[in-house]
């Protein structure tokens, strides 16, 4: 039984790898876009422009109040009706996870920028740096370091949340697993393998985040 189970996993490996590729592509693209978007959000929020802050607050609160799965359905079913834009489920998942991830990374970035001593900003301004120079040379390099550990935690959440893509029809690693179960009825084995798949991606990231956090707060 044990050997036949392992055998099944071995035979299914190419198929599972293809699904895992979809899952990881969604996660990776969303993480990349979230990071860029989140840093941009943090910078814009700390510029203290009233109308900009209001817009960004609304964006943040909408992504906080409405669960990611609901966003997935809203865009997947809503975009075709409201805008006549029919996005493949893969890209719909990337779009939602990126927008949500950017709001999460964005709050981390805002917090990091906010936590820098005021003197840094004032010193920069007093030697005549413009906004781009101030952020590029003074504030962002310091803030990026501070925001790294919590941002890695957001990454693990994006990876975990990417699993929801299966519910709008992405043929990801979960869907492939379900197809194998339909054929073989090995549900414990396959779901167990999926469990470990996500665990072995997310655990090293959370552990790294914790180590960095500890090391950098001591220094």
């Amino acid at each position, binding site marked *: 039984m044990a050997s036949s189970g392992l055998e099944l996993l071995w035979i299914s490996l190419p198929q599972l790898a293809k699904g895992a590729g979809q899952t990881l592509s969604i996660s990776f693209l969303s993480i990349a876009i979230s990071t860029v978007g989140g840093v941009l959000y943090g910078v814009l929020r700390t510029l203290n422009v009233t109308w900009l802050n209001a817009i960004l607050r609304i964006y943040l609160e909408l992504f906080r109040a*409405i669960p990611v*799965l609901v966003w997935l359905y809203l865009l997947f079913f809503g975009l075709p009706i409201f805008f006549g834009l029919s996005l493949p489920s893969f890209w719909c998942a990337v779009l939602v996870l990126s927008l949500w991830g950017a709001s999460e990374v964005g709050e981390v970035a805002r917090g990091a920028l906010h936590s820098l001593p005021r003197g840094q900003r004032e010193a920069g301004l007093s030697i005549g740096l413009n906004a781009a120079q101030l952020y590029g040379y003074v504030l962002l390099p310091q803030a990026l370091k501070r925001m790294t550990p919590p941002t890695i935690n957001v990454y693990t959440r994006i990876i*975990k949340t990417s699993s929801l893509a299966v519910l709008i029809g992405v043929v990801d690693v979960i869907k492939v697993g379900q197809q194998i*179960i339909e054929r073989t009825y090995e549900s*414990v084995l*396959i*779901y167990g393998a*999926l*469990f470990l798949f996500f665990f072995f991606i997310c655990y090293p990231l959370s552990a790294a985040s914790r180590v960095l956090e500890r090391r950098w707060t001591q220094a």
Partner: protein
Amino acid sequence: MTFDYAFILSTLPAFLKAVGVTLQVGLIAIATSLLVALLNATILVFRTPYLQKLVGFYVELARNTPLLIQLFFVYFALPAVGIQVSGFTAAIITMTFLGGAYLTEVLRAGVDAVPQAQLESGRSIGLSHGQLLRYVILPQAGILSLPSLFANFIFLLKETTVVSAVAVPEILYTTKSYIAIYYKTYEMLAVLTLICVLLFLSLSLLLSRLERRLQHGQFGS
């Protein structure tokens, strides 16, 4: 595109019921998670050998895997070993598994924030473990971790939308069913959005107020 108000009105009772189910799943899961977390936190505080390792393992496992996989495991894989549960029970079990781990972390952080001198003075006046926990650690750790506990409650309440995947008739599942039966996609998505905003936005605004209040109410600051 016409907006069918009459249809929305006709679905209101069903959506009210769905909100009830969402709250029911969420609140039960919050309560059970809190129990699990209290037990775990006690084990961690008193450094109970072996059990402490087990709690650590559980927390890492639950926090580093998606809720959806945990849910599918309970709902689709456990029947293969003879444990058959309803969608509702599966939802509660899974959300307790996830929530218990998150709340354990929150309580542990709260306990860590209680100054070590508090524990030592408690011990020095001869308090037992139980008394130390009841009169010294929990009252302080509880207040310290209140905002983060509340944030996690809201997180769990939002996560209930995921259990729509095993046919628990909460708000998202209800929306999906109505879309599938009547094709009123436009109207149903609007209702769903409205419910989410009313329910979760109000809670998260409440949380911000709570955080501000507690910031001003700390000892010695």
